[in-house]
């Protein structure tokens, strides 16, 4: 069966152990989680989780139903086929010296990324965008030597007036 990346958005109760339950479910049922991002939602005591999962439509529907079975999970939606805004943020610490610095800054500008820290032999870049954009910037910077990268994982929202979930 053809697999594809799916973006799942879940609202979960802000209780101890909830993430343990979610990650345990992915591990146990052999679902392949690409990323998970968690934060507060617009509702009190409810967190919003965005999960990117790789799988066939049937598998991902199983993921959705199994997640929804969880008593601390309020709602789960697969928004993959909807018109969405997907973003992640990355911090990339890249080697830089007097000869490479300007070239790096040019690349960063093209990506509308930001330099957020400068030191003797490195630059730290902050970039937001969808996963391909972050991947591409990472690839371009790789030739200079990456010291460190941190990524948040994707968060997502549907376009238009309606709520995603």
């Amino acid at each position, binding site marked *: 069966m053809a697999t594809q990346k799916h973006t799942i958005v879940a609202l979960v*109760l802000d209780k101890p152990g909830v993430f*343990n339950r979610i990650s*345990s479910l992915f591990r*146990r049922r052999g679902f392949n989680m690409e990323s998970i991002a968690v934060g507060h939602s617009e509702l009190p005591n409810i967190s919003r989780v965005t999960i990117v999962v790789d799988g066939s439509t049937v598998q991902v529907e199983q993921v959705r139903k*199994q997640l929804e079975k969880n*008593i*601390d999970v*309020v709602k789960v939606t697969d928004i993959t086929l909807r018109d969405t805004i997907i973003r992640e943020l990355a911090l990339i610490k890249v080697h830089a010296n007097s000869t490479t610095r300007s070239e790096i800054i040019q690349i960063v500008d093209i990506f509308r990324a930001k330099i957020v820290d400068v030191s003797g032999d490195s630059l730290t870049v902050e970039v937001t965008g969808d996963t391909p954009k972050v991947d591409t910037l990472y690839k371009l910077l790789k030739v200079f030597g990456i010291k460190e990268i941190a990524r948040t994982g994707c968060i997502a929202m549907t376009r238009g007036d309606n709520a995603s979930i």
Partner: protein
Amino acid sequence: MKMTGSQILCESLIKEGVDVIFGILGGSILPLYDTLTEYPQLRHVLVRHEQAAAHAAEGYARVTGKPGVCFATSGPGATNLVTGIANAFLDSTPVIAVTGQVATPFIGKDAFQEIDITGITLPITKHNYLVSDAASVAQTVKEAFYVARSGRPGPILIDIPKDIQVNPVEFDYSAKLVMPGYKPTVNGHPTQLKKAAKLIAEAQRPVIIAGHGVIISEAYEELKELAEKAQIPVISTLLGISSFPGSHILSYGWLGMHGMAYSNKAIDACDLVIAIGMRFDDRATGKVSGFAPRAKVIHIDIDPAEIGKNVKVDVPIVGDVRNVLRSMNKYIETMQHEEWMAELEELRAKHPLSVPDCSDKILPQYVIHKICQATDGKATVVTGVGQHQMWTAQYYTFNRHNGLLTSGGLGTMGFELPASVGAAVGRPDEDIWCIAGDGSFQMTMQELGTIAQENLNIKIAIMNNGYLGMVRQWQEMFYGKRYMATPLGGPNFVKLAEAYCIPALDVKRREDVEPAIQKAKDHEGCFLLNFIVEPEENVYPMVPPGASLAEVMETPRKEVLTWPRKSTL
């Protein structure tokens, strides 16, 4: 009024209708046990191992339909519960396990007998709780019972630190449950019901597969109405056995690896499967791609995650089986399927359950057949796991609802004796027969102590073949008859029973089988029968692993003996 956490727990249990607890105490649950002295209406059954507490709670829950409750102390007490909780999880049984935990200030310090039991049981409970203050005990218990018995039932664990058991707070049980993440769908969607009724009206060769869900929701009458009105044969799953009277003319055996050959062949030949409260377990379906290849599938289940999980479904209906059948039956018209029924009768006649004719030996199938006769198919029968389990399912014709307690999903050897304890407590005035394997029995036979102490009326029939028989059968069939670690010694079971003051008999000759069963039956109280049965008898029919149901193998020997089946209502 202020009450301690323990008192609040006991009050809450009483409010939830609990009257019995199975358990063993220890340091971290001592305050709670001390409080039990103030609540004589909560009967405590002291078991001999916490695994048995969980199985007994499950046995009790399965015969009464009420959640079963078990208690254990922290650490090893809690970990001993794990197998029993897992069993209840896989067989969708409402069990409430309460564990003591080390006092709050010690949590996370690897204190004596501290174990993260909520972590351990996370994947084998429907939900679990580590109680963080005495004020939340009442709410937690209320929620736990609601979750355990609603939707698809399942076990819940509540871990209560020792200090919380003694902290006094105000007791209030009136708060409403707010559970935005939990809203089981109980009524079938009308459009789906109509679609299903249409498929049923159009089908020429329909079958019903009745699962555990029929028993859990007590949809016996609704199932019977559907079957009779539309003249559809009822095949059950292993756990669905006794959801429909075994000697009903429309009862058509059970499916799966050791189900009847005719049942499996009917699944292969049918054009519509109406799957009711079942989950297409691999032991039931055989090779999934070869399952009911000519059929459309209607799947009724309360758990939406079961729909489409293993088998593609044409009409899914999420809801409580009883509600769904009640509403669906209104759309069902009276039908006849004469050709199909005639074909099925022929199949049944051609592929009966049969055993080799060896009249000088005791065949385990024969023993079970005789127990069935002696109890008129109306006993509550509890089995272990292995060949004896399959023979019980095959040769005991259940003529009462919810008569079979067996470990289906987890296949837990040792289930039979402790589950019988729970069954006997839950059905004190009925016949309880524990059909044990010599291997399974030895896993939990310490519970003879519980039975003796509580004076429980359980008839134990050990099918003693001197082997871990089911595994030996696989070695014989698939591993060149190399009997590695399957020959099994045992104690003198009669002396063992007698050591617990339980009367017992060895049964070594075929002619002694009936009188022995009668003797046990007539005895008031527990009686143990040790049947020395044919050691290398195999379970047939068998769908070999990886094969489809149509490829079912039948008794390979020529001379066969069959027992007549009553075809009355």
